[in-house]
């Protein structure tokens, strides 16, 4: 059952609310999502990408440890796409600060868009994002040898000097929407629109869908007692949920004062 389309605070029609649930117990930290994203979205690579502070990965897998010593140490990976924060009625940390409306909150899908041709590279959004989900194009995108042949026409390569980030593979949404319209449907089916990382994940750790749709897997998963979101306490209201049965992992998802109880 689909909930009635809600009128948002600003009178926008909220048709879908796309989001993700990532099962951290299943995530193996293999990195396939990162590369699936790069190849899907024409993210370039350079000869030396070892400086992670200038290396673009819309989906980045962070490594967390429980801080204990051998042999009690434990490790968990946090795949971090853009959280597509809803904030308070679309007031996400980045959208509210972008001076040129180069990033915007789409109430139809809940996706935080990025318009690279409008961005002029002030990087205020990067300062605003606590997840480091935003990346600046420090260099001209250059593909060696015949690698330009592998570029997808669905996503424009970005020029130097602008900010880019995960779009939840918005072009895939457009593709699915067009297909549905051609077939005379108003709704997009769950399996018709999946992000590249979700599709690639060899461990099936990522689930993607409409968080408002009772029939979608994400709707059920986000209600799990093990589900949590990153830095929820800041009020970013992210649309990416994580799941872990390990309590230390859930505690790593947010900041807590000493002695404070975590989720």
């Amino acid at each position, binding site marked *: 059952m689909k909930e009635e389309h809600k009128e948002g605070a600003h009178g926008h029609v909220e048709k879908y609310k796309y989001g993700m649930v990532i099962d951290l117990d299943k995530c193996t930290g293999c990195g396939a999502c990162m590369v699936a994203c790069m190849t899907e979205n024409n993210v370039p690579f350079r000869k030396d990408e070892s*400086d992670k502070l*200038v290396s673009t990965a819309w989906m980045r897998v962070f490594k967390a440890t429980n801080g204990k010593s051998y042999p009690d140490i434990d490790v968990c990976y946090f795949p971090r796409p853009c959280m597509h924060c809803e904030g308070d009625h679309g007031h996400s940390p980045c959208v509210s*600060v972008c*001076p040129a409306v180069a990033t915007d909150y789409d109430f139809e899908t809940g996706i935080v868009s990025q318009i690279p041709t409008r961005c002029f590279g002030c*990087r205020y959004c990067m300062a605003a994002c606590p997840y480091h989900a935003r990346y600046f194009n420090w*260099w001209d995108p250059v593909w060696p040898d015949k690698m330009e042949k592998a570029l997808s026409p669905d996503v424009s390569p970005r020029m130097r000097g*602008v900010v880019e980030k995960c779009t939840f593979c918005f072009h895939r949404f457009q593709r699915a929407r067009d297909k549905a319209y051609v077939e005379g449907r108003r709704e997009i089916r769950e399996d018709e629109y999946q992000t590249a990382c979700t599709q690639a994940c060899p461990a099936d750790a990522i689930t993607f869908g409409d968080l408002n749709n009772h029939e979608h897997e994400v709707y059920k998963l986000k209600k799990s007692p093990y589900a949590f979101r990153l830095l929820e306490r800041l009020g970013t209201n992210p649309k990416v949920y994580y799941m872990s049965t390990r309590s230390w992992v859930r505690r790593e998802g*947010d*900041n807590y004062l000493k002695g404070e109880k975590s989720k």
Partner: protein
Amino acid sequence: MDSALIPEGVKRCSFGKFALWIGFWSLLMLWALAGAGVCWLKGLNQTNLNDYFGFGAWITADLAIIALGAGAFFTGFMRYILGIEDFKPIINFVVIIGFICYSSALAILALDIGQPLRGWHIFWHANVHSMLTEVAFCISAYFMVLTIEYIPLVLENRQLDKIPLVHHFSHNLHHIMAVFAATGAFLSFFHQGSLGGVAGVLFGRPFAFRQHFAIWPTTFFLFIFSAIACGPCFTILVTRITELITRKKLVKQNVIVKLAKVSGWLLVGYLLVKTLDTVYWAMVTLPNMGVSFMDMYPESPFTIWILIAELGFCGVIPAIILITEKGRNNNLLLIPAAILTCIGICLNRYVMTVQALALPVMPFDNFVNYIPNWAEWVTSLAPFAYGAILISLSYRYLPVFPQEKELNP
């Protein structure tokens, strides 16, 4: 050689000496332009900025020089709106300082963006909810005001003033200067504030985020307050430096002392409010986000000492000197106090941008530090060279200091 251009009744050094002086600063400017050039041509990969430090030396320099340049609007405000005539002898000079600060800030902003050719998008596609949009509009508009205020002074050059139309124009502008000053004050209040807002609205960054009043975070008001408190100090400092270099008394002591007094009391007020704000932030804002006050000062260089330096050494100490009669009348105390105040505000602007970004927010994220590279340093420090050149030219060819003749008969 250029004596025809020099205002009547004042003495200036020889042209050769002057050329040498200007030449020295021009070399520094060239160096800075080289730094700017590589950044514009090759892109921001020529800097040490990165995805964690999208903001660095430039934004700090920007915020700092705009705060230091606040003397311009605030002195104008006191002179034209509040009608405090005491500041008349220094108003020309503060306009020049302001003009230098704001034009440098705009130039640095143009450097700081990844696609300078698209800088106009900030106006064309403006997002009115963004503090940066407000900053851009207000700075640009206020820069227009400063230009309008600077023009009559330029037109008062001995040779230009001989042209009737020019003479009338500068006279008429002078005549309605209060209107411009008022507009400038309005714009300035807003952009000083919105610069504060830039940091304060970042609710993803516990270090920067502050409680909101109406639509503005407290930093909005704190930045205005700190800027007007420190602006006069910077004016004093630059005046004293100019006097030192020209080896002349240019402004009467009463003007300077009055500025110092205003600055001192504003500083006291600012420190009180800032302390309240910090306490509220530490006791309420941060715990709600799950972080403690000391989490915000984890490691070098961002230890608690940076806060003590900002508010103590560079806040309380100069404030005490400036509000005491003896302190502000004693040059040996006044100048260090002015310097400390200026350092304090630079430090404040630095922590609100760079420290805010340096502290990891995700618990599993790493602390990283950032040190600007040469291109950032030279361009950030270029306003000194640029300022020296513009002040020297203005001083030599324009009647900047009305009291000069009287003080140097």
